[in-house]
């Protein structure tokens, strides 16, 4: 499998070789996890307004998407893609500014937590309606092809529950019709909020759906970083080379609540103790150590380095101005002379 990663040249030149690829992946996963820990702490301390949604247990899958893409590609991450966002090139600053509502962040306090992006840079900001981002990625790819761009991939993520939406169906069918280089990654984390798989779909496996849409399918163990890097690398390469849409279904377990307000008491304890319930970050660390790709001291140095970075950025963002209702530009449209005017007392 490792050999396949190398042979397929699936991951572009940023990470040369399996060792460096795993090290890079682990570093992003660790950053994402530590960022999650910090966000959870800030939430409990009342420093974050609104919800906090963590990515615990989905880092191996998510980082593999981000690392397989090029920065010039299109990426529409979903709720648990903290690692993939970092790997695609998002800064910790963007993330913390959005979560903490800084007026200087990309969303300027107008939207929060996972609803962030820089669309002009191919990094789309999700809306909450599941499945809705897939056709938007299709549109970005369609537009690039319209402009004559050939070398491109667009990736987006969804959960097992999101596959039950009409938007998912319409968009995957649309991508297949247009033969777009779309990589649609389903993180089957067994629960849509509290609803188990058997109340969301009745097919044997979500990859079975690919046949119906006429798209390629891939399955992967979402707790296994090596497998995720390999499968996502191949799926992205295949899309880039003209293989059309790729549906990737990863099996894993969410190792946290839907949001930090949720204690996830509904998760079957048997799942937690099954292979699905393993912590992908811990497993990835074990791979690095077993392969001699990193030492235990190095892993600890990385951890300390990231904690320092995160603390520094948090301290910076805490000093940044918050949005101000009095200076806010309360207009939802860009064309100034078409703004609606209401007489206010």
């Amino acid at each position: 499998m490792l050999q396949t990663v190398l042979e397929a040249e699936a991951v572009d030149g940023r990470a040369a070789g399996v060792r460096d690829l795993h090290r890079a992946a682990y570093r992003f996963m660790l950053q994402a996890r530590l960022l999650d820990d910090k966000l959870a702490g800030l939430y409990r301390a009342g420093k974050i307004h609104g919800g906090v949604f963590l990515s615990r247990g989905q880092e191996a899958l998510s980082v593999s998407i981000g690392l397989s893409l090029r920065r010039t590609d299109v990426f529409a991450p979903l709720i648990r893609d903290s690692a993939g966002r970092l790997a695609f090139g998002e800064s910790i600053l963007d993330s913390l500014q959005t979560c903490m509502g800084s007026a200087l962040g990309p969303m300027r306090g107008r939207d929060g937590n996972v609803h962030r992006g820089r669309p002009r840079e191919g990094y789309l900001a999700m809306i909450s309606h599941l499945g809705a981002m897939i056709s938007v990625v299709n549109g970005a790819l369609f537009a690039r092809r319209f402009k004559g761009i050939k070398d491109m991939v667009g990736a987006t993520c969804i959960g097992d529950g999101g596959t039950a939406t009409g938007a998912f169906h319409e968009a995957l069918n649309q991508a297949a019709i247009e033969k777009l280089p779309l990589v649609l990654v389903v993180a089957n984390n067994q629960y849509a909020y509290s609803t188990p798989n058997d109340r969301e779909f009745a097919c044997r496996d979500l990859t079975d759906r690919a046949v119906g849409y006429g798209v390629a399918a891939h399955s992967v163990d979402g707790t296994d970083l090596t497998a995720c890097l390999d499968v996502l690398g191949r799926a992205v390469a295949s899309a880039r080379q003209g293989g059309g849409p790729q549906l990737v279904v990863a099996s894993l377990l969410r190792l946290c609540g839907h949001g930090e307000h949720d204690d996830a008491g509904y998760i079957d304890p048997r799942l937690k103790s099954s292979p699905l319930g393993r912590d992908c970050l811990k497993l990835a660390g074990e791979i690095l150590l077993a392969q001699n790709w990193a030492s235990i001291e190095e892993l600890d140095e990385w951890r300390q380095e990231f904690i320092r970075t995160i603390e520094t950025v948090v301290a910076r963002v805490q000093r940044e101005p918050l949005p101000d209702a009095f200076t806010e530009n309360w207009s939802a449209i860009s064309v100034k002379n078409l703004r609606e005017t209401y007489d206010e007392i």
Partner: protein
Amino acid sequence: MSITYLEAIREAQAVALRDDPRVFIYGQDVGAFGGAFKATKNLAREFPGRVFDAPISEDAMVGMAVGAAVEGLRPIVEMQFADFSTAGFNQIVNQAATLFWRTQVPCSMTVRLPFGGTSGSGPFHSQSLEAIYAHYPGLIVLTPATVEDAYSMLLEAVAIDDPVIFCEHKFLYYHLKAEKLPSEALPVGKARIAREGRDLTIVAYSAMVHEALAAAAELVPEGWEIEVVDLRSVKPLDTDTIMASVARTGRLLCVGEAWPWGGVTAEVIARVATEGFGLLDVPPQRLNAKDTPVPYHPNLWAAHRPAARAITDAARKMLRL
């Protein structure tokens, strides 16, 4: 040589495709077939690679247009009927309408909605949905009533950096004719005085402008001079022109083909009542469709929507006050 409302829409799209390489058209049957109403007739042939048939997936159609707009293109999405736009509603109101405000990236796209009642079309091919789109922040909602406006406002819609819901009335498609297309026009956001008068202001838009004009003509022999304001754009709403007209006449009747609860007529009356209460000599009134789905049979349909006779009756009552 004359040109219909429908042909004007086709011509505007041809001009947009010709003049702006960022424009493309996406919708069901819009390609070689030329659209269910032929609003894109021959465009696929004249502009190869610019007009694309879409699957029957309104949600994905609009989502695709949003993605293309993010990449700097200017899509025109044709909904086969306005009624079906509800299947793409989420992408319009939550994706397209919020994009600029959330991300500072304008979402330049036009969604064409062939809307409004025609005899025999029934509950699902007749709806007037301008009010629900106008309700959402982030959208421009246009309702041209004339051939000239259908042409010039569609061209302007494509040029606007924000998402535009372009409501084109199916009843006007073939009936309405003009001698030629205009070379200049009032800008979007300005209402038009369709007929000058001094006794009562009727505010209307789209097909109802013509019913209002017919009612105004009917009242001439009785000595009444009715002013008719054609809103042209329901969002933004040109409150100044409405207020100036009411200042002249002291009487306001609003006419809309949409359902009565909330909506454009309610909004116009709310604006005048809050900002210009002192201008009113009599209580403002409104006429809308009945609060039921749009009926199929002509006997019912003709009574369901406000037509010239109902407008005349309502105007007479107000004029006697």
